[in-house]
């Protein structure tokens, strides 16, 4: 991810749901510059934050081996804007998951107030054309997931902690020994 649009995961149950938090700050260009004099967090970035939350939830089911991309915003209701100082809670619930994609139902709250709700569809790029394409470098992606505290809070439905996939650990080791 070139932009981190979620700050960290607070809950993550494999194949079920994930909760992430995002604090909105006036010091972000996107907030200060979007509507000069009226600092608001662009709603499109709320949707993208949910896409990150839901996309990671969806792709973790396959141990991060599949290329999962946001394909369609099926439903979206934005009830109000997010402003500097807000702490947003983004919750993604996995509604469907097949070999071709996934559907996430997402809700965004500011405290108890429902700011936005949406349904997002993801597609898994498993066409022949994409055979040798990597969406992310495994070591970099692993670092990103560590930073988001995924492996700190992530559990399987039986309560056991989510393990970092071997291919990521190997990529990390390779990167560290190369430097």
């Amino acid at each position, binding site marked *: 991810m070139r932009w981190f649009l979620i700050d960290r995961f607070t809950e993550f149950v494999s194949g079920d749901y994930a909760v992430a938090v995002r604090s909105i700050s006036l010091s972000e260009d996107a907030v200060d510059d979007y509507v000069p004099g009226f600092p608001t967090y662009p709603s499109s970035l709320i949707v993208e934050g949910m896409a990150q939350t839901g996309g990671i939830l969806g792709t973790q089911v396959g141990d991060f081996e599949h290329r999962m991309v946001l394909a369609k915003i*099926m439903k979206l209701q934005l009830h109000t804007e997010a402003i500097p100082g807000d702490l947003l809670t983004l919750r993604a619930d996995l509604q469907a998951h097949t070999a071709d994609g996934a559907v996430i139902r997402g809700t965004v709250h500011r405290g108890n107030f429902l700011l936005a709700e949406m349904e997002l*569809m993801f597609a898994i790029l498993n066409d022949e054309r994409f055979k040798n394409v990597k969406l992310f470098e495994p070591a970099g992606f692993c670092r990103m997931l560590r930073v988001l505290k995924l492996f700190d809070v992530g559990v399987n439905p039986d309560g056991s902690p989510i393990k970092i996939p071997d291919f990521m650990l190997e990529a990390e080791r390779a990167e560290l020994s190369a430097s």
Partner: protein
Amino acid sequence: MPSNEEVFEKVKEALMDALGVDDDEVTPEATLVGDLGAESIDFLDIVFKLEKAFDITIPRDDLFPDDVLTSAEYVQEGRVTEVGLAKLKERMPFADLTKFEENPLVQDFGNLLTVQDLCNYVSTKVA
């Protein structure tokens, strides 16, 4: 077992939701691609909605037999062969292939499916 009308109503609702089309645009003869403007990504959406509405599983190959359409055995110079057409009929008994058969260009296959074909397919899955 849902009746044909019930199947049609649910399929219509899924198509209206996925494609943003009006009630009166979704007729049995309407083609998903040509008449209703479905794009490839919409098919995934439609599949998810139908799976949910009818509690069925729709393998991708059922509606899009890519293995037939990309096989040298069944396709020659962009046209589906006699053997290929027979294979398609066998794999897709719910679809009316007569129009396609007149000029079976692989590139036109996407525009084959009509709303009625989809209803027929769903009916076989819920049976």
